[in-house]
């Protein structure tokens, strides 16, 4: 594999992972309740509220 392409792809994946956590944190701010990531059964509450 082309070393430059290799490094670019790895950098892209690392940036995606960082962006994932940043977006997740920003979306959570000011919102009550937990999301699908917390692992509790109250998750569907959020879904129910969004469907209203």
């Amino acid at each position, binding site marked *: 594999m082309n070393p430059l392409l290799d*490094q670019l792809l*790895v950098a892209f994946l690392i940036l995606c992972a960082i962006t994932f956590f940043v977006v997740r944190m920003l979306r959570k701010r000011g919102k009550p309740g*937990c999301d699908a990531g917390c692992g509790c*059964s109250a998750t569907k509450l959020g879904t129910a509220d969004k469907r209203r």
Partner: protein
Amino acid sequence: MTIAPPPVAETTRNVAIAGNPNCGKSTIFNALTGLRQKVGNYPGVTVERKMGRFFGSHGEPMTLLDLPGSYSLQVRSPDEAVARDVLLGRRADTPRPDVVIAVVDASSLERSLYLVAQMLDLQIPTIVALNMVDVAERRGIIINLPALEEELGVPVVPMVATKSLGMVELKQAVSRQLLAAPKRLLPIPEPIRAEAESIAGELKVSPEVAFAEALLLLTLHDQALGDLAENNPAVVESVLAAQARLRALEIEPLSALVEARYEWIHEVCSRVVHKPGESGLTISDRMDMILTHRVWGWVSFLGAMTLMFVCIFTLAQIPMEWIDNGAKWLGQWVSTHMPESDLRSLIVDGAIPGVGGVVIFLPQILILFFFLGILEDSGYMARAAFMMDRVMSSVGLHGKSFIPLLSSFACAIPGIMATRTVENRNDRLATILVAPLMSCSARLPVYALMIAVLIPTASSFAKSGIMLSMYLVGIVAAFTMAWFFKKTLLKSDTPMLLLELPPYRRPSLRGIATRMVERAGIFLRRAGTVILALSILLWALATYPKPPAGATRAEAISQSYAGRMGHFIEPAIRPLGYDWKIGIGLVGSFAAREVFVGTMGIVYNIEGEVKDDTSSLRDTMRSERHPDGSLVYTPLVCISLMIFYVLAMQCISTVAVVRRETNSWRWPLFQIGYMTALAWLGAFAVFHVGHWIGFQ
């Protein structure tokens, strides 16, 4: 001519489901809306606002609200207050319902009718859903439905919600065009009625609820009225004057109203309910003679727990091997089809061992949830709470705190949310502070890995014995800390436990299976997002900066960012017997405990000693040595690590929920501090006391 259906967004009616705890409200809610929710059968499981949408018998869309369970509108806990406020239209965020479905347990009609009697005063069109008629029938209880409808003045729909019987009739009743508000049937003592009507005239609320509000105000004690005085001084003055006038007539408003309502309920029941003689014991009574016995009860409880852990270790082995082989195959496939590069290393050494190392524990977690579901649905959980009340009160906690603590075995988050049923603020805070000490399902992968490293060839019984011990350590730590907090920071008297023991029921396997599928979905979604992203970042931290040419793989990871982090915290963890690689695992798992397993997979993989599967990870960890040649993972280090994970906070989501529930950063920060200190001291004590005794 065709009739256009109403737009989807339009809601024709706001319907609320209300009733006592454990009467089947959530089951009816699920059946009507199709939303999946957790349905427990001990009091107080419904602590959140649950809304959904369903369609009436003519396709008209309606909003459905599942109110928290309550016994009365004279509230005792925050969740009962929510139900009262919605029914009275006090909440700005929730409209007052157009129709109320009052769910009533047919097998204990007399008790359930108290709340119905209060709701009939609210002037909201009401439909009584007479649930669990099958249980009542089995007990020989005959209810004359037309007579009950006539006595209550509202439609009554017989139901068996768990089997979806009566759903169509309930939908038809809710969909009726003209639903009249109930007539006031309840005989209220005349002096109280006169005072309530006088106060109702002064209240700035809608005329439908004014009388009910006035009755509630009349029953408030001085302290509660004092709290209201700031906003409504004139009304509070009138209420106090009215109470004084009634007391002069030797009428205590609260007890007079309670007596009047029960007298009315007794009369209604004597006319509509035919019970068999009270001589025979029910099956539930006979089972309770054993399961709540002071000796056999504990034997049964420990037996059930042991069975659960043995099954976790035996039944899960085969699917775990499948996942293990799948991850192994995938790693090899990628290795053979991709040229050597950083990208291949990211996939083979980072993503696959990171995610695979966590996913492999899915079968064990599902078995844990299967057993918790059976215990909950069968009605055994309430017995466990009853049995634990003596233990709970000995550490100063209320018996109700046991239910949140028990829920925390699955996940501390619903456990902490369930503390809303605990009335006393200090009891609630103490429960919140110790709930994360109960071993949640995220700790299972860590325990399983460390037990595999500790005793790889031992029997399932020995492994489950160690696992059970870790759970017991968590319980003992939670109770000890609760006792300490109640003696120091959170002093208060603990009220007596009043707990409803529901009859034993056959667990709904379909419901449990649904919850297991849901759980698997949540776990896999988490593995595919949070764990995957963390694995990529941990791989990057363990790979960069690149070492100078000629460096060994061990030297490479040692000088990487992760290695430097591990070395940085090594002085703090060295007294616990841990090296810098374990330090990387501890730092990596601060956000979520189960990440520890994936992190160790990545660290040892990059070092080049693991071949893509957890059994090899176990073997690598077993043969890992310090520079002086001594073993890293001695039995004492394995146990000390497990103790650390029993006692440490290590869960960002729990921190966020504690912040929300306590409405301050003070308590979650205190919790992180005390739990980390406790974990360090616990691990230190195990390591050094073990050495002192002569263990390795």
